[in-house]
């Protein structure tokens, strides 16, 4: 996989535009709970955590799938689903630690993020820069900068941060 959806939750303001953009793009419905990306609200601490499919190397969802519809795409490294085989048993929802398997009640199947074929709508609509679509090298570079800044006690001052 050469491109990643990088989430920097410290920058998220919880506006919900990514959820809306995703739902509209994927289902045509203006309903955030149909989105493949979700923002978790940790109200007591004012934390907003955008969360979506992490495209694990050995996905737990694939191991529990009763119909073997979930697999890894050998070319892109994404976790993909053969939706016509899905019976909506929701076992994958129970196994995914990231809550990234979303039940799409319009199609009565469980779906996950597919990076919109290489041009994610959520990233295009994110106003705060919390979601970015980067190559592996860029993503690692960014992680290193953020972590380095944090260890030097300069959290929030690292390159690329507001």
């Amino acid at each position, binding site marked *: 996989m050469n491109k990643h959806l990088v989430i920097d939750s410290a920058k998220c303001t919880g506006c919900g535009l990514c959820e809306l953009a995703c739902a509209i793009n994927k289902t045509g419905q203006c309903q955030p709970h149909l989105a493949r990306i979700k923002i978790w609200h940790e109200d007591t601490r004012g934390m907003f955590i955008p969360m979506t499919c992490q495209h694990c190397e050995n996905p*737990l969802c694939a191991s529990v799938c009763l119909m073997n519809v979930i697999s890894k795409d050998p070319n892109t490294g994404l976790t993909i689903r053969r939706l016509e085989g899905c019976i909506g*048993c929701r*076992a994958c929802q129970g196994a995914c630690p*990231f809550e990234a398997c979303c039940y799409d009640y319009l199609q009565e199947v469980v779906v996950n993020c597919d990076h919109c074929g290489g041009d994610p709508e959520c990233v295009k609509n994110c106003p705060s820069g919390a979601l970015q679509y980067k190559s592996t090298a860029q993503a690692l570079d960014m992680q290193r900068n953020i972590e380095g800044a944090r260890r030097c006690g300069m959290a929030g001052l690292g390159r690329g941060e507001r």
Partner: protein
Amino acid sequence: MKNIVIIGNGAAANSVAETIRKHDSQIPIIMVAREKLPEYSACALPDCLSGWVDRNQLFIKQLSDYDRIGIQTRFGLEINQIDTSKRILISGQETIYYDQLILATGSRPIIPPVLGCELPGNFVIKTVGDIDAILAHQPRQVVVVGSGNIGIETAEALQVRGCQVTIVELMERIFPRIFDEEPSYRIRKILIDRGIEILTGEKVLEISGGQRVEAAITDKRTITCDTVIWAAGVKQNVEIARSAGVELGELGGIRVNSRMQTNIEGVYACGDCIESMDMLTGYPALSLLWPNAKRQGQVAALNCLRQETEYEGAVSLVVEDIYGITAVSMGMTSGTLTGEDIRILEGQNNDEYWRVLVMNDRIMGMQTIGMHSGLGAVMALMKKRTPLSEFWQMIADHDMVRKVAWYLPAQRFLSE
């Protein structure tokens, strides 16, 4: 060239074949199975019975798919004997030579030897053929014996089809091995509200009838019915392995080590027919669930190809759809942990209910009804054996919690 022979065509056997093909495109693979059908999902059979899933949709592979990925098939062949010294499989029609053998013979449903269990109208749920036979029988009044996941799903499916369904369970509650008392009673209430009759603590003594099933006689009453479905558990298919000298464990499955090797060199076993160990306790356990079979298949395949891989152990995850309400059980239940010092964290919110079992600061199991979110996080914490004290320490740290953001949904289940 060396070849690999797989006996079976279920989840484990196909997982073996696919994993070998992924790592080695040359080595010849032969699959031998009794049924003539391509791989299908046995877990979805009750859904097919209710009409929710099409019969065609059950099939995960087509017969042509085996040829396409280079697997030779011998379907419809019954193996009579394995000669491990000459490395051959003997059947009525042909003799197959192997260098490495993988046993994935699976399990079969138990029908207790009661009077009348041979009459037409007695069925089990194990294969597509069973579903076809039940539908051809056109059941009206059904007795389901046993209330594990197969029993309850079948009862629900037939009730949806318009049958009058009675569940007879020997133990004091339904789902005796999967749920604790409280969630079990909640599920019982949902089923009774929909019109399924549930008789617990009763034993079926006899099936009466002249030409076909007419009634089921228990120790307390006589239930008029035209169909009896036996869902009282399964038994491992180990006869052929045992006669070949493969060692069995004390629970009745084939004994394997963590690399899925049996006591005989070059013979591996995986799936329902083996006795593996429990991931959480380390004790020997029979794991009759789809995800475990698939993982065991992968481990057996990799070790067969000399890529040493260890099996982590079996962990159960059962997801039941009870009339649209999702009931989930993962890990151990209080019943399997009797005698241990366990702490129960439970809570409810309208129709939602959850219960987490904690032993020595570690999560050992969880059961929920009507919930969809947060389960995966608890499952991952359980498998990682994260102590609860460490969990709360991470949650309290503002910087750390962003790195392990997936901990957050588990909070509501784990708070006192």
